[in-house]
């Protein structure tokens, strides 16, 4: 077990050196940090009212501004998540295609699998790094930016929901892209296939406006969470949203099983 962990760490380092060589990793992480701050800083800034207020009484205004600050913090988070989801929709398939498709294309996969590395370990190391570099960086940057700019957002449930929206499509798209790479063993096929799938998932709720929230939660969860907020935190939408997220994870698990089987069968 200990040797396995040590070996897994070594594989991670080898993968990091191979596919995230300087300055690619630094550029991706920096870009995601800056964008997270940019989207979050551009959110709600001020509200104005006179005292004494001509229309509302003091307590009414307090309720108003407490609601206002919270709502605007949520809107900021929602807007930022929405913006960043498009960035992630690009980064996830591209990075996955580069780390899987390119390695299969060039023969690096064969070189690595000639060492005492199991196929599952190599797959896990690659997938782990993709998710940590993209979704991990975004989540941490989001959290820091949120603390900086939206201190009044005391809604851990909502924050969690938005973080989930960064992870579920990332897992699904990356696994699908890996599967394309494994089946095609081609960089270009995995690159175009992954990007097409990712953006297809993003824009399909716009194309089919009447799409059910459950399906939207699978394809573009940020949009589903936005609907949940706009619809005044409707329980029924939350239910659909939750089922959609669970369904997305279930599809990912299915994809994981298929991908692992394919990787095991793959001839390199």
């Amino acid at each position, binding site marked *: 077990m200990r*040797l396995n962990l*040590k*070996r897994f*760490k*070594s*594989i991670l*380092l*080898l993968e990091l*050196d*191979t596919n995230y*060589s*300087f300055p690619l990793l630094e550029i991706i992480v920096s870009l995601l940090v800056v964008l997270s701050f940019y989207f979050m800083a551009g959110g709600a800034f001020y509200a104005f009212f006179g005292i004494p207020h001509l229309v509302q009484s003091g307590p009414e205004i307090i309720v108003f501004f407490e609601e206002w600050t919270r709502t605007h913090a949520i809107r900021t988070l929602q807007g930022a998540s929405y913006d960043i989801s498009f960035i992630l929709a690009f980064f996830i398939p591209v990075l996955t295609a580069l780390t899987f498709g390119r390695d299969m294309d*060039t*023969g*690096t996969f*064969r*070189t690595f*699998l*000639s*060492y*005492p*590395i*199991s196929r599952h370990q190599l797959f896990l190391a690659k997938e782990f790094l993709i998710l940590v570099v993209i979704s991990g960086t975004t989540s941490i940057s989001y959290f820091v930016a949120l603390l900086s700019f939206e201190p009044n957002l005391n809604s851990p449930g909502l924050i969690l929901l938005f973080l989930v929206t960064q992870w579920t499509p990332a897992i699904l798209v990356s696994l699908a892209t890996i599967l394309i790479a494994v089946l095609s063993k081609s960089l270009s096929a995995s690159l175009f296939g992954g990007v097409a799938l990712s953006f297809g998932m993003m824009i399909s709720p716009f194309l089919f406006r009447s799409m059910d929230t459950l399906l939207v939660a699978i394809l573009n969860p940020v949009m589903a969470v936005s609907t949940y907020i706009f619809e005044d935190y409707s329980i029924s939408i939350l239910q659909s949203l939750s089922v959609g997220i669970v369904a997305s994870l279930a599809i990912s698990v299915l994809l994981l099983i298929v991908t692992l089987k394919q990787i095991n069968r793959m*001839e*390199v």
Partner: protein
Amino acid sequence: MTKASVVRASELIKNFDDVRALNELTLDIEPGIFGLIGPNGSGKTTFLRILLGLIRPNAGTAEVLGMQVDKESLQIREKLGVLHERPTYPTRLTPLRFLHRVRDIYGTDKDPEDLLELVGLSSASHRRIGDLSAGMTQRLGIAQALIGQPELVLLDEPTSNLDVVGRDEIAQLIMELHANLGVSFIVASHVLSELDRICDSVAFIRDGSVLEQGRTLDLIAQYTTNRYRVKTDNPQQLAPILEKTAQFNNVRIVGRIAVTLSSNLETTADLEQVVRSAISHSEIKIYDVIRANSLEDIYMEVMTNAT
């Protein structure tokens, strides 16, 4: 399987779509330096990839160091080193860092700097792999194959990118490593000159089947007794003349500079005298007459006999 066998393959079949790459290949390889000889597309690389667990055979079994390739691939690879044909390494890493990483995967304590020195790459240890020449990359390939302190090293066309001097150096290196570290080697190649001097045993394969296998010296004795090589400037004209000579048979043209033949004459001097008298009325020049006992000669014999 004898206890000493490092590889044993039994009736391996491998198909790639409609192409049969291995056709009931059976092979028993003992420790030492083993040459796997065959033309391009004969199934050498496919065989090595099966041993590594990179591809699965359609039928047949294979064992490496006493372990089944289909069940204990990871354990086998812990004791194997490999240099692939046209190897691909992370181009942006330095050889030293790459070897460190690979060593950590094997979990050995081999010093990468020592290995780089051994393969003559210490001066380039801090250059990027992508900037190395083909020969340097090949040397790095040998270094990374040895970093795990393997019991067996598979080398697939190890000198394919090298010039004559480089080939000679790699051949020397293989012999030294075998002598000093006791590592066994399986060298798959179609460049016979390098295998000639280093292989204890060889197998000739074609179309996925073993045509002949044995100790190199035994095969030389078996195939080249009474075979001679006549070096000439005009083998095309010389061959028909020699065919008509009573003392010679099995006359074959070897490239543009030689003819091989069988004869019961005792010495090369006797043979040269007969050859010269046969061509006395022509302008063909004879440069040398030697015994045809190189691996290339055996290869020609085996391949021709198999046709």
